[in-house]
C-alpha cells in the first residue's frame, strides 16, 4: 500500500489522530500536495457514498470529516492556487424559523471536503441574510438551504424565490432536509435537491459544473 493509499484508508476509517502523520509521511516521500489533497477529497466522496447507502452513520461521517480537516491542516501552508481546484464559494444556512443544524453541518463538512469555500450562516437564516452573504462574498457558485420542519417549508420557498428574483447571478440553489423532496424542490424553483449529505456533494458538483 502506498502512503497515499494509507492516507485514504485511514481517512475513510475516520482515524483523525493518524491521518496528519500519514499526510506528513506522504509529503516526505515526495508526493505532490495536490495529489494528497485529491486523494483525501476522493476519500470523502467514498464516505459520502457509504453514508447515502446506509453503510455508515453520522458518527463515522463526522470522524472522517475531522480526519480530513486534520490532514488539510498539514498541507495548508503548502497549498497554492495550482494545487487546489476550488469549486467556488457556497453560502449555506438553515432557513428562517428552523433551528436544526446537524444536517446542515454535515453538508457543510462534505462540501468543504469536496473543494467548496464554505460560508456557513448558521440556523434561522433570513432571506435578507442569504442575499447579503451572496453580495459580500466572492465567486458564490452555490447557495444551500436546509430545513427540517414541515412548518418552515414556506420559508424555504420564500428564500428560494427571493434568491431567484434578486437579480443576482452566477450561483445555483440546492435544497435539502427531511421534509424536502425532488417534487417540492422543482415546485419552489430550486436548481437541485439532495436527500442526504453524501448525495449533496455529488449534486452540488454537478450543479456548479453544469
Amino acid at each position, binding site marked *: 500500500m502506498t502512503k497515499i493509499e494509507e492516507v485514504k484508508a485511514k481517512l475513510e476509517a475516520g482515524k*483523525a489522530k493518524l491521518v496528519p502523520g500519514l499526510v506528513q509521511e506522504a509529503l516526505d516521500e515526495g508526493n505532490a500536495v495536490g495529489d494528497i489533497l485529491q486523494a483525501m477529497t476522493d476519500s470523502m466522496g467514498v464516505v459520502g457514498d457509504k453514508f447515502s447507502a446506509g453503510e455508515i452513520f*453520522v*458518527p*463515522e461521517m463526522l*470522524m472522517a470529516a475531522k480526519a480530513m480537516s486534520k490532514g488539510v491542516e498539514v498541507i495548508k501552508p503548502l497549498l497554492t492556487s495550482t494545487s487546489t481546484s476550488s469549486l467556488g464559494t457556497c453560502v449555506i444556512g438553515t432557513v428562517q424559523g428552523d433551528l436544526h443544524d*446537524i*444536517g446542515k*453541518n454535515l453538508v457543510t463538512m462534505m462540501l468543504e471536503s469536496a473543494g467548496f469555500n464554505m460560508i456557513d450562516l448558521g440556523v434561522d437564516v433570513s432571506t435578507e441574510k442569504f442575499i447579503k452573504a451572496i453580495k459580500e462574498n466572492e465567486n458564490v457558485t452555490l447557495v444551500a438551504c436546509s430545513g427540517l420542519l414541515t*412548518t418552515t417549508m414556506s420559508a424555504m420557498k420564500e428564500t428560494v424565490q427571493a434568491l431567484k428574483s434578486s437579480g443576482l447571478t452566477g450561483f445555483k440553489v440546492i435544497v435539502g432536509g*427531511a421534509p424536502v423532496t425532488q417534487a417540492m424542490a422543482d415546485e419552489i424553483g430550486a436548481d437541485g435537491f439532495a436527500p442526504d449529505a453524501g448525495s449533496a456533494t455529488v449534486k452540488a458538483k454537478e450543479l456548479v459544473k453544469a
Partner: protein
Amino acid sequence: MLTKRQNLMETIKGGNPDRFVNQYEFMELIMEAPMDLPLAPGPGMTVKNKWGITFSWPEGQIGSFPVHDDEHKVVKDITKWKDVVKAPSVYYTDEEWAAAVAHANSVDRTDKFVTAFCAPGIFEMTHHLMGVEDALMNLYEEPEAMKELIDYVVEYELAYAQQVIEHLHPDALFHHDDWGSQISTLISPAMFEEFFLPAYKKVYGFWKENGVQLIVHHSDSYAATFVPFMIEMGIDIWQGAMTTNNIPELIKKYGGKISFMGDIDSGVVDHPTWSREEIAKYVAIACQRCGKLYFIPNLSQGLNISSFPGVYETTSEEIDRMS
C-alpha cells in the same frame, strides 16, 4: 365491549381486539409527577434545567431546542464530565407528589394503564449535555468516558424510577429517546448495542421488576434496525414508528414480540393547513395496511397532542371510524 386496557392487551398479545386501539387512549399519563423540567415551557422562553442545560423556545417555533454554543454547553470536554455534570435530586416532598398521587388514585386501572412519563432518554441526555456532534464523535474518541457518563445517567434514571414506583405504582412507563432521523438511525446498530442496549436493559428491567407491565418507548424516527434491541431491552410498544420503517413488514417479522404505534407521520398531517380529508386518508392507509394486531394507529408525536389544534382529536375520530 373490551375495556381500553383489555383491547390493548388483545392487540399486543395477538388475541381478538374488538376495535383499533385509538392512539394514546390506553395510557393515563401522570404528567403532574414532579420531574426535572427538560424543556422550555413555551414560545419566547429560555430556561436552564437542573442539569444545567439551557433550552430555548424561540417565538414562532413549534418546540424548544437545547442551546449548544460555547457559552451554554454543559460538557465542553468529555474527559472532565465529572467536574460539570451533576444530576438533580430525585427526592421530592409529599406535597410535590400530591397531585400526581391523586391523579393516579383516580384512574380506573381496569380501563387504563396508570403511566409514568420519563424524558429525555439516555441518548438524548448525552447530546443535550454536549451537543449532538460532540456526543456522537465522543462515542469514537472517548468511549470509556461516554460509558461512564451513560452509567451516571442510568443511575439517575433508576433512582427516579424508584421514587415514581413508590409513589404512583404505575402499570406502564412511557419513555422518550429519539434514536434516528426520518430515514436512518443516528448511530449504527453495533454502536447502539455497545453503548445503549446495556443501559436500557438496566432501566427497563428495573421498571418491570417493580410492577410495570408495559414499556412504551417513543422514538419518532426510522429505527427498524434497532427493533431486535428494543425487544431485548423489554420494550412492548414502540411509539412514534414512522412510515419510513415499513411497519407492515415489521409487524410480520416481529409481531408477538413487540407492537408498533404510529404509521401516521405527524409532519404529513399536522401542519397549519391540515384538513379532515387528509387525515382520513392517512389514517385509512395506516389501518388498512397494518391491521389490528400488534399495531396502534397514532400520530408520530410523542404525546397525546398535536402541534396544530384539532389534528389529534380529528385523527382519533377517523381511527374510530375505521374501527
